[in-house]
């Protein structure tokens, strides 16, 4: 396979596309897949066949188009009109009015200039939702594997790394470690075997960017990994995907087979001496496996338990060999950087945080979905312009970034630019991109408890501060939501947060206290109200009002045949401290 043959494939496919007078793209990723995307596609096919126009109308199921909250989504080409909340009965009308009659159904169409799409700048998500994820030719027709061809034929290994360094790209997994620097370290270590690993564990609850990217454009990730393999001298790659994403796993398996068949992967890629294979490793439900050393332990078939660093994976990773480990979004950014050059990428974003970032907007927000914005965009713009604000008259309370390791950004910091440094200053972290908006119906103490229960259940149990510390933190937070906590508990809570943060072995333990510290910092009043006045302004926590005596022990039977003469004082039975155990609460 030479570059010319690659262009040829692209050329032929584009010629085929011109043959169609119209295209119908039905979104079949994530949310839309579950709300019947596939069924809609079949209905469109039947409708077109009935009107025997299926010859010149191309109907495909695509990856995530972005506006998940308004799914199922259908986008029609060439006019690029986007129809939202498409029901089964709308199919006939769309085919008749739009495809045949060439008139846009305004009541179903999403305004073309709406900020949700207008304010975005898509690099990693560029082809997603526009190509058929299961067709390598469609990917090639949109410039796919061109970067790999260019990297192998025109760039030296160091040349590729220089391009990535000059782009200023930093790890999109959350820590923001400079990608070029990491590549150059793995490149310099002498070793017979090196590995490239894509971290697609995406354990943060409320984050679905990696899932959408893999389902919508799997080849972009494979191409990014191949370029990385070429640059650092690795011949084997692994994609570690969460077991909870069956569709993503299917799409990746198909993409790898297609890439091998068209010699984008395997031996002598683009007739060079560069060989690169990619295998899948499927996670089995462990949030800790998002941490790099635990992920590698899991790939090696062991318990996903982190190990102390140094030595860092770039020097000694999988089976002791140098291993380059990056996130899905980081790899997805590599092909555009190689094609357009590092300088172009460095021109976007802020001084220290270059390029764009993909966010998964969710929670109490009108436009839940997937967006990609340049670094440094103010949070207010993301939530209120792109996100469409809080639905049904809700009032913004805080935005949560970084999942169980992140923090909350309250009203007064709505205008901070969203980049690594500014988020760190307000006590949160960029994280992988989950952005959950909460309004007045959520109680911050209850949310702190929710995340601590998550970390307690997901702790691997290896080191004491995290294994036992998260349980103690959870017990205190649980007592606070049931009105059984004391002021001394609040002091122990703060002391414990510092200790668990400073002494835990890996990122899970070190960041587990972040949500607590963040809510303590910005919403201290809610903690005091819970402890001193047993009040929860969000109405989430059920606590006994203070002036009544503690509730009589539940197990008190009817009055037994004790001699009536004895007047037993109506002493309150002990409100015995309930010991641990998670408590289900209604919200």
């Amino acid at each position: 396979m030479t570059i010319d043959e690659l262009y040829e494939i692209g050329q032929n496919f584009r010629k085929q596309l011109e043959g169609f007078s119209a295209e119908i793209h039905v979104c079949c990723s994530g949310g839309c897949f579950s709300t019947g995307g596939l069924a809609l596609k079949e209905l469109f096919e039947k409708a077109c066949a009935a009107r025997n126009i299926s010859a010149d109308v191309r109907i495909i199921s695509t990856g995530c188009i972005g506006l998940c909250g308004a799914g199922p989504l259908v986008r029609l080409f060439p006019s690029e009109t986007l129809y939202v909340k498409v029901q089964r009965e709308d199919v006939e009308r769309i085919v008749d009015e739009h495809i045949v009659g060439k008139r846009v159904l305004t009541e179903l169409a999403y305004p073309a200039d709406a900020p949700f799409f207008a304010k975005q700048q898509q690099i990693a998500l560029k082809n997603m939702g526009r190509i058929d994820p299961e067709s390598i030719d469609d990917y090639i027709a949109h410039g796919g594997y061109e970067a790999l061809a260019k990297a192998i034929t025109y760039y030296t290994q160091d040349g590729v790394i220089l391009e990535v360094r000059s782009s200023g790209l930093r790890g999109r997994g959350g820590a923001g470690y400079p990608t070029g620097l990491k590549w150059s370290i793995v490149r310099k270590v002498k070793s017979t075997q090196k590995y490239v690993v894509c971290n697609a564990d995406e354990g943060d609850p409320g984050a679905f960017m990696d899932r959408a990217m893999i389902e919508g454009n799997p080849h972009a990730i494979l191409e990014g990994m191949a370029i990385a393999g070429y640059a650092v001298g690795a011949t084997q790659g692994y994609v570690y995907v969460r077991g909870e994403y069956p569709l993503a796993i299917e799409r990746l398996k198909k993409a790898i087979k297609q890439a091998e068949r068209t010699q984008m992967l395997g031996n002598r890629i683009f007739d060079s001496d560069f060989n690169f294979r990619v295998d899948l490793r499927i996670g089995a439900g462990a949030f800790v496996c998002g941490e790099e050393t635990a992920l590698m332990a899991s790939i090696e078939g062991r318990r996903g338990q982190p190990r102390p660093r140094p030595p860092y994976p770039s020097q000694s990773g999988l089976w002791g060999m140098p291993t380059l480990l990056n996130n899905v979004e980081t790899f997805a950014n590599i092909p555009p950087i190689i094609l357009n050059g590092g300088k172009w990428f460095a021109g976007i974003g802020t001084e220290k945080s270059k390029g764009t970032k993909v966010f998964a907007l969710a929670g109490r927000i009108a436009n839940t979905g997937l967006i990609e914005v340049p670094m440094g965009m103010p949070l207010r713009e993301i939530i209120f312009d792109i996100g469409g604000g809080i639905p049904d008259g809700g009032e913004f309370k805080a935005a949560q970034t970084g999942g169980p390791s992140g923090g909350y950004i309250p009203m007064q910091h709505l205008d901070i630019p969203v980049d690594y440094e500014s988020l760190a200053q307000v006590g949160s972290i960029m994280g992988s991109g989950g952005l959950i908006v909460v309004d007045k119906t959520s109680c911050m103490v209850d949310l702190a408890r929710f995340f601590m229960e998550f970390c307690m259940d997901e702790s691997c149990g290896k080191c004491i501060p995290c294994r036992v510390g998260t349980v103690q933190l959870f017990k205190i937070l649980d007592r606070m939501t049931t009105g059984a906590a004391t002021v001394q508990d609040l002091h122990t809570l703060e002391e414990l947060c510092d200790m668990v943060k400073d002494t835990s072995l890996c990122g899970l333990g070190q960041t587990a206290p972040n949500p607590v510290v963040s809510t303590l910092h910005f919403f201290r009043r809610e903690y005091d109200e819970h402890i001193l006045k047993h009040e929860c302004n969000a109405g989430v926590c059920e606590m006994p009002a203070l002036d009544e005596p503690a509730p009589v022990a539940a197990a008190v039977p009817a009055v037994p045949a004790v001699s009536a003469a004895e007047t037993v004082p109506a002493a309150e039975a002990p409100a015995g401290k309930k010991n641990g155990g998670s408590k289900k609460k209604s919200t």
Partner: protein
Amino acid sequence: MDKIRLATAWLGGCSGCHMSFLDLDERLIDLHGRAEVVFSPVMDVKRYPENVDVALVEGAVANSDNRELLETIRANTRILIAFGDCAVNGNVTAMRNGIDRDEMLKQIYGDIGKELGRSIYSPLPVLEETVLPINKVVTVDAFLPGCPPHADLIWHVITELLEGRIPILTEEQLKYG
């Protein structure tokens, strides 16, 4: 210097610590000169007095009586000391915590167990669901672990208190079990 008002109490424990207290032997006479014991299981006092200076509380909180007495002691005492392993960490008394209280009562007392130990109207106090060391129920000023703490250690603590200092036990003095 008038005598300090000293109290000792016996919650959910085996009274071994009080035996060790009595092992002070001749030092008890010396103690008698400097402290006035105002409440103790070895004395015939029914109601816990007010403004007690120091209370040595032995045993864990295993039932409602223990809890009531402990809360009364805390309310009327300046310095409360957790006396012995049961008071400090629940020790043997807390070994039943792994078993569900109601199942245990049913197993031991059969049907009448339903009321026994569970209702405030039954003759016995209500058993706590979980036996707790006393620092989980009230704030405690000093701890004296040991099962039982050695008489010399008790004497060291008492003399420190008589000089008005709350003792911090060193590595050599600390002894569990």
